[in-house]
């Protein structure tokens, strides 16, 4: 199973993205998207932003669960209080696990935000952040 994660800022700008694979069922953590899919991932994920914007005023939860489908792929979304969107493309439905993943990712994001050298909507380039997100992926997905 492969995943694609994108963090999108308040002005629909890209903040962070990552492709990764599962460690479950003997996976090695590498994404196994086909060459076509690899290119399509960002498109699919970002096109679901419209749906997020539609949904965000109808509910006050943060975890919007699965919001969009593209053939066999599902897109889950999580919205923080400050309108930063986390979007995850995945293959099987697992709301609870993904929620935990998002909550921990939120924690990481806020830690990044606490740094006086980071401001909202800036791309996250920290290697430590990258490493921590991969650890979360290994833990939950």
């Amino acid at each position, binding site marked *: 199973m492969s995943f694609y994660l994108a963090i999108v800022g308040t002005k629909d700008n890209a903040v962070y993205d990552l492709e990764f694979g599962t460690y479950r069922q003997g996976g090695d953590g590498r994404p196994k998207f086909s060459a076509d899919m690899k290119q399509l991932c960002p498109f699919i994920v970002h096109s679901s932003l419209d749906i997020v914007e539609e949904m965000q005023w109808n509910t006050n939860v943060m975890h919007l669960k699965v919001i969009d489908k593209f053939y066999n792929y599902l897109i889950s979304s999580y919205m*923080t209080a*400050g*309108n930063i969107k986390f979007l995850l493309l995945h293959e099987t439905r697992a709301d609870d696990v993904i929620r935990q993943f998002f909550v921990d990712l939120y924690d990481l994001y*806020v*830690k990044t935000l*606490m740094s006086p050298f980071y401001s909202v909507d800036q791309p996250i380039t920290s290697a430590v952040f990258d490493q*921590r997100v991969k650890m979360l992926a290994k833990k939950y997905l």
Partner: protein
Amino acid sequence: MLQNRSSYPSQQSAVAPSLASSSEKSIPTSLTPSSLRTVTTPRKVTIYDRNLNRRAPELSLAAFAFLFNEVVQYSQKNVKGIQEMEIKLSEYGYHVGQRVLELTVVREIKSAKRETRVLGLLQFINTGIWKSVFGKPADALEKSKDQEDEYMIIDNDPIVNKYISVPREMSQLNCAAFQAGIVEAVMDGCQFPARVTAHSVPTDLFPLKTVFLVKLDPVVVERERYMR
């Protein structure tokens, strides 16, 4: 510098060349891979290793007053008028507000929800944000009688103004513009763009009483009407 370094234990002196600036070329003498391997550099503690939920014990008011005093003095430089200075103060507050919003929410992640209505958000600012920043809820939240898009958050004794006495020729100034900036950032962050300004309304009982006037953007008013 060299003399200082000679007093180090030998293991550490092996690291020293890599730390020293490139201009000092004479230092590396016997730097073999094996001598490097014995050195254990302490792992750097990054911001990601800190715990977000560990609250610092109450901070000293004196230290805050001292720091804020410097902020006010700094913002007084290179400004033409009081209004400009208030805008500057508010900008500093804005950066605080952006962070405070997410931090406050993440600390209450169990009950976490996004605010989608104006009133809910204002109440959250009134209690949640105020409590997490100033340690007490704001004193009142009022809706303007004649203006539909104006709300007022009232603080009888704002902490930022506690040790500030405004000179007479600057009587227009209210340094709680900093606090207004925090509120504005929270409103903006939740997608409720608004302009927030601080106004002094001294009373006999509360000489520092400040009203934070929240003027909502027309977009918000329209959306609110649509959602009703």
